[in-house]
Each structure stands twice: as C-alpha cells, then as structure tokens.
C-alpha cells in the first residue's frame, strides 16, 4: 500500500510479502468461512455479501476514486446479469461448451459495453450533471425492464438453471457451497484487479481528476477521458457482479435494475467509507447482515439502518473504514492500550443508551401493533410485558442515562484519541484522516 520507493538501488521483488499479506489473509479467511458457517443459509448470505462487495467496490471506483456520484449504477450490474442469464439459457438450449465459471466475464463485457455508451455522453462533467444524467438513464433503463418483456421478462424476470451447463471438473454447481467457491474466486480476482487499477497511471489520475479536474487538464490529461475510463472499468466489474448474481440466484428480475438498488449501493459504499479501498467491503458486509439478519429480528430494521446511515454521514463522513483508520496512527505509535479505558467509559454507556432507545422504540411499536391480549414480547432475549409501565421506564432510563453518561465522557475519549495519535517527540503537523477524502 505504501508507494515509497525504499531502495532505489536494489531491485524490487515482483510481489513483496508486505503487499501480498492482506490478500493472502483474506483469501485464507474466505476459504475457511464455509467450515465455520456450514448452514446453507449462511453460505447463501455470504454469497450475497460477496456479490455486494464486488458491486460496492465497482461503485467506489466512481464515487471514491473518481468523484462521480451515480444514482443509477444498478443498471450496469443488472444488464450484465440479464445477458448472463440469456447466455446461460442459450448454453442450456444449444448445449454450448461454456463452463459456468467463465460466465461472469460476459456479464462484465456487457456491463462495460453499456457503460461505454452511457459514459460517452455522461462523463463530460462530474458533479451534479453526471449525477442527474445517471439518475435519468437509470430511470429509463429501469422503465424499459418492465416494458420490454421479451428481453427482461417483465415482472417474473428471466429464470435459468446453472446446473445444465458443462460440469466444471466434475462440479455441477448443485449446492450453494459450490457456488460459494466460484463467487469467492471472482471476488478475489475482481477485488485484486480493482485494487491494481487504482495503482495504475489512469487510476492515479482518477484521484487527481476527482480532487481538481482543472489542474489535471493542465497536466496533459483530459479529465473527461480519465472519467470515461474509470466509468467503463466500473461498469465492467458491476457486470461481473451481475453475472455472479445470475449464477447464485438463477433469476434476474426488474428489481436488479431498480433505482432502489442503485440507492442501496450508494448507501453501502458511503457507510463503509469511500476514502479507503476496503471501505466498501465493510459497508457491504455490515449492510447485508443488517438486511438479512436484523430484518428477521425486527420489522423496524429499516428505521435503524436509516438512523445509522444518517449518523454516519453526520459524525463519521469517512465511514466505518474512516473510523478504523483514525486509529492507524495509534497502532503505529503503540498507544492503543491507552485508549481502552476512555473508550470503555464512553462506549459502554453509549451502547447501553442506544440499546435502551431501540428497546423503547420496540416496546412502543409492539404496544401499538401487537394483537389484543398479546402483551408479551421478547426483547434482547428477555420476555416482558409491553403494556406495563416498568419496561418502558427501564428502557427510557437506560436510554437517557446511557447517552448522558456517554456525552459526559466523550470529551475525555476525544482527548485520549488525540494523545494517542500524537508522538511523544516534537509534534509534526498531522491530520486525522477521517475527513480526508470526504469531499
């Protein structure tokens, strides 16, 4: 990750261990996961996560690295997915010799093809013009998906069967676990390629154009062309994600093109943090868990997701990754330990306060909407009566008290953090990275 050229005389090895380590760890982690979570449902959720990660990383090529805010990026994933579905069905109908694992390439190519067309007129400017064109194009293609039934299959969408293709080394991809490894392969490959893309000349210039398009033009680069290349590359990887979606779910519907999905990916990417390469990965994991797991626990999950999102934008514009990276200097200086006590003092009450608030909301909701006579509810594994005063008072006290205590200790926590990122020796001008790439 570090660009410093350590020793100009020595020849740099092709891949240094330091550079490769995070990738090797991630790969190992991904390979082991199915042995820890063996249930089909958790594997399905992990598949969903992996697909979302690719899509979010592709999206961040625009938003984080290129400074282009898109409200219609789902169409590139969707169109790639639909094409894959049609190819899959052709493979079945005409017995084409196409092994399933290669299918996402076609998704990528078609996603890129569409991005080439749209990018030709939308990347002239970044900012609002680009955002509004993306919104318009997104809406148009989403509308087409319902009108042009022959291609998009209308409301039922286009189903297919991944198992009818050629067996791939004897694997017919019958089970989610087989698909998991296929997706993981593509996840690692795509993430690696996207990471490397950000290290290429055009990838670096994408950052420059994001920060100051005019200056970039006076360095010999056409801002438009740099944006265009980022945009098509992003379209490619979005299409790969679409192809994987086709393989995993074996169906594509109009929802894959909808503005809702486009909005979601913006939310995911920003939640994770646009300023860091790994930000969208965190965002995708957290959001998928919230969506599939929290929604099993409470009907109000979207309320919590909305609140989390707004709070993130307000207090941590660097996203979750930004929060993590705020502590990178502390780790480097070996001062993490000094943070434990002040953090506990603030965060434990804060968590209690938040859980108390959530509990209060849940009790209110249950009290209003549950069936008559059905007054028992389970909250955080505790059974209680939603119509009696006690639980309401308790949660309110927890909420108010917790947040009050947290607020009292918050300055102390901030102070501790500042101390932890400051070396003991003379202080050089340092800047918390959280606000860095936000603009």
């Amino acid at each position, binding site marked *: 990750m570090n660009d410093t050229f350590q020793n100009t005389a020595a020849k740099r090895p092709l891949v240094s261990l330091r550079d490769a380590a995070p990738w090797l760890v991630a790969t190992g982690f991904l390979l082991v996961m199915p042995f820890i979570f063996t249930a089909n*449902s958790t594997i399905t959720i992990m598949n969903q996560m992996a697909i979302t990660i690719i899509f979010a990383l592709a999206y961040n090529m625009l938003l984080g690295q290129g400074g282009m805010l898109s409200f219609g990026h789902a169409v590139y994933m969707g169109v790639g997915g639909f094409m894959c579905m049609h190819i899959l069905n052709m493979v079945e109908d005409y017995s084409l010799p196409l092994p399933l694992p290669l299918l996402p390439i076609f998704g990528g190519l078609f996603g890129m093809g569409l991005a080439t067309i749209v990018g030709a007129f939308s990347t002239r400017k970044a900012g609002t013009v680009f955002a509004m064109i993306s919104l318009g194009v997104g809406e148009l293609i989403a509308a087409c998906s319902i009108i042009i*039934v022959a291609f998009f299959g*209308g409301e039922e969408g286009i*189903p297919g069967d991944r198992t009818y293709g050629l067996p791939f080394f004897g694997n017919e991809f019958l089970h989610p676990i087989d698909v998991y490894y296929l997706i993981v392969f593509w996840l690692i490959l795509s993430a690696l390629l996207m990471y490397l893309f950000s290290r290429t000349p055009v990838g670096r210039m994408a950052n420059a154009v994001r920060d100051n398009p005019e200056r970039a033009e006076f360095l010999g680069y056409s801002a438009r062309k740099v944006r265009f290349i980022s945009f098509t590359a992003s379209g490619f990887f979005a299409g790969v994600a679409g192809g994987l979606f086709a393989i995993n779910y074996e*169906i594509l519907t109009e929802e894959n093109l909808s503005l809702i999905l486009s909005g979601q990916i913006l939310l995911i990417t920003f939640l994770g943090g646009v300023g860091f390469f790994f930000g969208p990965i965190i965002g995708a994991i957290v959001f998928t868990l919230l969506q599939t797991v929290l929604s099993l626990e409470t009907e109000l999950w979207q309320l919590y997701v909305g609140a989390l999102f707004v709070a993130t934008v307000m207090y941590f514009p660097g996203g979750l990754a930004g929060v993590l990276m705020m502590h990178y200097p502390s780790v480097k200086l070996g001062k993490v330990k000094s943070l434990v006590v002040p953090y506990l003092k603030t*965060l434990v009450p804060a968590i209690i306060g938040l859980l108390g608030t959530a509990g209060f909301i849940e009790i209110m909701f249950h009290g209003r909407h549950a069936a008559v006579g059905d007054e028992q509810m389970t909250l955080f594994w505790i059974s209680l009566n939603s119509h009696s005063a006690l639980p309401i008072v308790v949660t309110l006290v927890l909420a108010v008290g917790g947040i009050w205590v947290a607020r009292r200790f918050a300055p102390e926590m901030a102070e501790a953090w500042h101390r932890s990122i400051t070396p003991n020796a003379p202080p050089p001008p340092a800047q918390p990275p959280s606000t860095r790439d936000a603009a």
Partner: protein
Amino acid sequence: MRIKTLFGLTTALAIGISASAAFAENIKIAFIDPLSGPFAAVGASGLAQYEFAIDQLVNQQGGVLGGKNLEIVSFDNKMSGKESLIQLQVAIDQGIRFIAQGNSSGIAHAISDAINKHNKRNPDNRVLFMNYSAVDPALTNDKCTFWHFRFDANADIKMDVMTDVMAANAALERVYIIGQDYSFGKAVAAAAVRDLEAKRPDVEIVGNELHPLGKVKDFTPYARKIIASGADAVITGNFGADMVGLGRAIIGAGFEGPIYTYYGAATGITRTFGEAGKDTIRLVQEGGVNPPASDRAADYITAFKAKYPEQDIAQARITNVVEMLAKAIDAAGTADDVVKVALALEGMEHDSLWGGKIFMRPQDHQAIQDVHITVHTDEGIQFPLDNSPFGLLTESTVEMAGMDSATTCQMQRP
C-alpha cells in the same frame, strides 16, 4: 469500536438463525412476505390471519399428528425476489417444510422456480409451496410444479366470474379495461378481452390500456379518457396506491358505473374510498364475509377482530390453507415427507369456513371454489373493513368457479 459491537451483534444473530433449528417440535410454516417497506401493510395483515387461523382452527382443536402444534414463522422478503430467495434458504435451513407466500406473482414465480430446483437437488429435505394469493395463471399452467399449490382462484377464473356477472347485465354496452403495465395487468386485460368476446360479442371494449406500475402520480387524464369513451363499466387489476389513485380519479371525474377490481378493498383502501366508492367499487373474491356463511364464520371474524382490531379478514382463503394443510398432514401421517403431504392435498375436498367446498384440482394444483362478486357499501354490512362503516357485500356467487377450466399444466411428479 462501533464496528466491533456491530460485528458482535450480527454474529450473535447469525448464529441465532442456525441455532433455532435445533428445537423443532412444532410443525412450522414459513411466511415469506413483505413486512417492511411499501407493501408491508398487506404482509402484516396476512401474517395476523395466519397466526389466528393456526391458533383457532388447528392448535386449539388438538393440533395435528396427535398433538403437535402448527407454527407460523415470519420472514420479511421486503417485496424483493432476491431477499425472498435468501429467506427461503434460511427457512429451509431451519427445517421448515412448508412455505407460504402470496404477494406478487413475480416473487411467487421466483420461489416456485427455486423450490423446484431445490427439491430436485436436495431430495432429502424437500419443501412445499402454499401459494395463498399470487394469481398469475401461469403458475398452474405452463409453469406448474408438483410442489406448488394455489389456494386463491387464479386471475383467469376470477375474470371468468367477473365477465359472467357482467354478461348478465343486458344494459352493458361499453367496457373500459385499464391496468398496470406488468405481467398481471396484461393477463387481466387479455382474459377480459377473451371472455367478453366469447360471452357478449355485442359489448364494445372502448379502451384497453396499461399505465406504468407505481409511477403515475395523477390518474386524472386516464379518468378523463374513460369518461370520454362513454364506458358503462371499468375493469382493473390494479393494487395498492395505483388502485386508490385510479379509483378516486375515475369517481372524481364523474364516472357512475361499476368498477370491477381484483384488489379494491382492505388495508386502507376501503376507508380511503369511503362514501365516494359506494356501490361503484366491485371486487371479485373468494370467501365473502357479508353476510357470513355461518355462525361459526361470524364467531371466527368477531374473535379475530377482538384480537386484531387493526386487521381484517381480507384474505379469507388463509383459513383454507391452514385447515387443508393440517388435514393433509394428518392424512399423510407425517409432516416430514412432503411428497406424501402433497399427494394427500391433491384432490382434497374441504368444507370451507366461508361456505361452499374447496377442491384441490390434482391436474394443476389449483383450488376450485366459490367465487363472489362483492360491492363496496355501508348498507347491510355486518363486518366492515378498515374500521370504517364500509365493507364488501356479496352480490352474486359462482359456485365451484372454473371447475372445468382448461389447464396446460404437465405435472412432473416425483
């Protein structure tokens, strides 16, 4: 910090999913329908009706298989096909063998397709699909599977009933068909044209059009066209906000004839139409509640309203799903071998709580039952909807509707 707590929380939840599979004494039915988002009202209503039906009609009557209880487990699919498939997998992992879903034929197709694949690939833990509301005819025709059972009358049967009633009205001269631009809206339009041509070739179809689904803000121009066409009656398959918007615009523009609908009532729609919709809005449905078929039915509704004051018996067929499934499990003697349960359901005859018989046609797994045309009114209503004075009064009934309707289903049996 924040992240760690989130991770901790979510891992705990993730483990929660798989752990709950361990204690499975009850026979569970997975309810996969929207419980959040814009369509949550319909999902929540269906869930309440399932909970009540299971409790009243099965568990309080001694359960199934000599004392086992049924249990409904809800899964929020957010009205998304992708989420439905994830939740389906979660349900299957929890050892659930019966899947109930109804909102959106698109999602029903996705689930039916996924279940078909799952059962083929995993012969050891197959599941059945209890479709209680999705009415796309294809599900019991071209796309039929052995694992899918439909308890509602399908769109074609409903249209057959609707046009029977319309055909009987000698004064009818012009009909206007309008619907949402998606598969169901198109199916309704096609069926209406076909049936009217067959039954009343003299009736002129003065308009047949589609509008984008959920995108029209103002329905007035459509209403103007309908008035201008001189139509005597309107047919629409619209649901949700599109139904309300269209209905109010048509009535507001001065239309006085009947508006035949599939989904023009309950979950706020009846209350919103209120006085304006009186004697105009008509609904084709199974299981009418005004007048109730029997004292037993009346008591059931009263008890339901006492427990769920905010909800209504808007999908009466849910009691049929529950009772017939319980009967089939008892007859099969097992709740694990779903093939046996499915075979027991095939051809089953059942006396519905709402009067009349239900026959689960074995050729296509389409429930054949009495279908009514009801009218939105506040007169003679014993059980109103939406806690308003208005409800649906049964005007006419076709018994065992669609009994001999054709099907293109070529059922693949295991």
